[in-house]
């Protein structure tokens, strides 16, 4: 059991805080990709508060672990995590989406500290993550690269190109999370473009694949530790998640892929999330 009770409690509270902040930003920015950000909070919290070997004070530290948000529209979630972790002031979140600000829908690594890859268009991040993993190999460093991809995003051929190449090059320092929240813009993924059997596909592509509850921090932690220890090749943690997790009126609804929140809805949402 990698997490002590105390750690677990702290992480849960952090996750709740992150969720509440995401709802806040969605509120004051006029709208954000709230559903898909809420579904990946637990993965992000585990990475940024336990497993990523990073230093917010030194965002360009050469030997840091890398994190790529391939489903780049989750920028609001990533930004909230980075701010809470100390990469930039929480105040900056107030400028989310404003013209010319450092933070917007799809984070720009040239503007926001702590963003290892500027993503947005689907299917790019995993390729870059692979490049980083191979780069670490060339430089003989033990840098780890973590990447979160989306299930809708997995329609993109380039995801599978990267998957094939990672297996070919047996990159043990690459760990991918698939935020399997089952909904994309046009609806339920299996109605739009079916992905199942998804875990089988990743296994067939040569990735050591584990299916895990993406909201069970303890289970996730075990999965991540397994992934880090696995040295035979890349690992895919297929995380079963709920789009809009934490906010009862958003959960499992395609329409909350992107949305705006009135002050009243913000309050309701935060109440639903609770303290963790």
């Amino acid at each position: 059991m990698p997490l002590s009770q105390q750690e677990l409690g702290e992480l849960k509270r952090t996750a709740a805080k992150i969720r509440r902040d995401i709802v806040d930003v969605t509120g004051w920015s006029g709208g954000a990709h709230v559903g898909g950000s809420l579904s990946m909070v637990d993965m992000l919290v585990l990475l940024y508060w336990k497993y990523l070997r990073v230093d917010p004070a030194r965002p360009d530290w050469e030997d840091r672990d890398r994190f790529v948000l391939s489903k780049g529209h989750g920028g609001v979630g990533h930004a909230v995590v980075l701010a809470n972790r100390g990469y930039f002031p929480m105040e900056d979140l107030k400028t989310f989406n404003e013209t010319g600000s450092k933070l917007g829908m799809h984070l720009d690594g040239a503007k926001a500290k702590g963003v290892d890859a500027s993503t947005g268009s689907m299917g790019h991040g995993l390729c870059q993550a692979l490049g980083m993993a191979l780069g670490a190999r060339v430089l003989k460093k033990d840098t780890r690269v973590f990447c979160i991809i989306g299930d809708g995003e997995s329609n993109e051929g380039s995801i599978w190109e990267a998957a094939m190449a990672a297996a070919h090059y047996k990159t043990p320092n690459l760990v991918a999370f698939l935020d399997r929240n089952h909904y994309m813009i046009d609806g339920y993924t299996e109605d739009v473009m079916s992905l199942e059997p998804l875990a089988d596909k990743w296994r067939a592509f040569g990735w050591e694949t584990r299916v895990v509850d993406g909201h069970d921090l303890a289970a996730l932690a075990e999965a991540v530790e397994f992934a880090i220890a696995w040295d035979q090749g890349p690992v895919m943690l297929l995380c079963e998640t709920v789009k809009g997790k934490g906010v009862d009126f958003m959960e499992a609804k395609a329409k909350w892929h992107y949305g705006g929140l009135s002050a009243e809805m913000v309050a309701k949402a935060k109440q639903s999330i609770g303290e963790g």
Partner: protein
Amino acid sequence: MAGVESSTSWTVYDATKLSAREIYGVVLSDLGAARPDIVGLSADLAKSTQIGAFGERFPDRFFNFGIAEQNMFGAAAGLAKMGLTPFVSTFSAFASMRACEFLRTDVCYQNLNVKVIATHGGTSFGSAGTTHHATEDLSIVRAFANLTVIVPADGFETAQAVKKCLDIAGPVYIRIGRGFEPTVYDREDESFQIGKAVEMRPGTDITIIACGPTVFHAVEASRVLAENDGLSVRVLNMHTIKPIDEEAVLRAVAETRRILTVEDHNVVGGLGTAVADVIAASGKGCAFTKVGIPDTFTPHGYPEDLMNLFGTDTDGIIAKVRELLGREFEEDEDWEDEV
């Protein structure tokens, strides 16, 4: 009789063995020895694009991504982010179109130190036909901010471009042919500077601005026109399309008042358009003509024949200049074999 048949058993993919003039593969390989940060990437075309030479010498720094160009360019971005200097090579058609978004969004938008060696530009992959011809690539990549676009005139200039693109802290797209193109230079010209056009021949009647394989033809045409027609034809090797050498263009406008551009590329959006931008912005009057592929798709054929078809070779340029300057010419009619 020795009994050996004529052997045309080389394949269109064996550029490495036969194209003596395409030396960049060796150059890159030598650079790789001095620069441990250089890594090579290929999309199943290591032999055809010469990057295989680097790969053989430094297998730990060479990655073949198979026929998956999008991932290759994304990975190149990732490698660059780790502080390495990736040289990515594939055919121009695939570099500019198949991997277009990855080149633009992962490499150029993030302003990464990725060097693209786009081979088989224009119609140089002749027999492979339209699907493998890169007749729009310059038009496409010119539009990417942060990208430097170079079209070297021959193998020697390519070697220089490869060496000197390392001085640019950002993405570079170097577009070359298939390796059998005639050389314009007889050795590397160390005075080569990215962004600075080279005056290959001085002149005052008209200026031909060319890039890539057409430079050789422009120089030949200029020579023939001087000897036969008494014309003074300036030739500018505009190897860098972006940033284009505006000063050289403006000088040609002022001093010759007639400009003819030639490229192994569509007349839409490439060298010709880039030159036209400069001329139009200058507000100066100038006779201007573009020679290139006239906004059509190109048929299959030997590349030399295709260049002849589209008038981008020596004869085509000569004819165009004569047409522009209203000149007639008497052909040499003695076809008796010398003894």
